[in-house]
């Protein structure tokens, strides 16, 4: 088997296992009360981490580039209660415009 297919197979199996672990082990039932609060705070923590890394993350370094301007424009749109589609288009358009200028 070529190394390409080996990677496709191993990464696919590992990812399926990781994604299904929680839903298979704890799926469909309520968590014990002391864990509910903990898991309930996960979305906020993970979403914030995704915003931070996808706005400022580079190759092993922090970067301030056009993405930050796009996300700032998105933040303004969110504060103005714009629909999600408008928020996304505004972020992409601002980032693209700055890249075209620089």
């Amino acid at each position, binding site marked *: 088997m070529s190394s*390409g297919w080996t990677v496709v197979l191993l*990464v696919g199996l590992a990812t*399926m296992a990781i994604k299904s*672990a929680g839903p298979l082990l704890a799926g469909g039932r309520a968590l014990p009360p002391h864990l509910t609060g903990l898991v309930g705070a*996960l979305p906020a923590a993970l979403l914030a981490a995704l915003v931070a890394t996808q706005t400022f993350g580079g190759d092993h370094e922090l970067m301030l580039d056009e993405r930050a301007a796009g996300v700032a424009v998105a933040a303004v749109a969110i504060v103005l209660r714009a629909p999600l589609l408008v*928020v996304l288009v505004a*972020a992409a358009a601002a*980032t693209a*415009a700055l890249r075209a200028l620089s």
Partner: protein
Amino acid sequence: MRSGARAAAPLAVAVGAFGVPFGVLARSAGLGHVAPVVMSATTFAGSAQFAAVSILGTGGSVAAAVVAAVLLNARYGPIGLSVASALRGSVALRFLQSQLIVDESWAVSSRGDGTFDRWRLVGAGLTLYCAWVAGTIAGVFGGDLIGDPMDLGLDAAFPALFLALLVPQVRTRSALAAALAGAAIAIALVPGTRPGIPIIAASAACFAGWRRR
């Protein structure tokens, strides 16, 4: 389910647009025509696929490619746990639903109070899945059809989505504490660790919200 698909539709454009360069990159890394499409259909996790294929393409070992991809996807452990109580049905059904979990479908299905809507997750996940696989096929067979998605600023659409979905989450003090701690941990770890580690470590931030209760 339809509301999930509708919410994910604008993102599907961006996800599909990134599927094209993945197909192009995978082909140039020597994976041929079929393996990249199989990978998108079975792994369905953009950043891990890009990492694994680019490591192979630059002469890295199979082990290095697999480890990088697994580290990047490790966040789906805590993410899967957070939606677990919403995914009902038989073992096979729960397995299939869990494969539709990606950052975007998970985020779109969040109700903002720590609970998740299963049908929004499935609707959004299926929409994004089709876009990702179709984009990969276009990239493998059509080459660089749409140009660089970076030129269109599409990479900024993802953090913008996560921000839009984060805002309704942080209505309580504990959620705000968890969000601030999560962002701080992730930012602090980006320079010193492999990609993927900052997000996993940030899940520890839920303790910040928990202990204040």
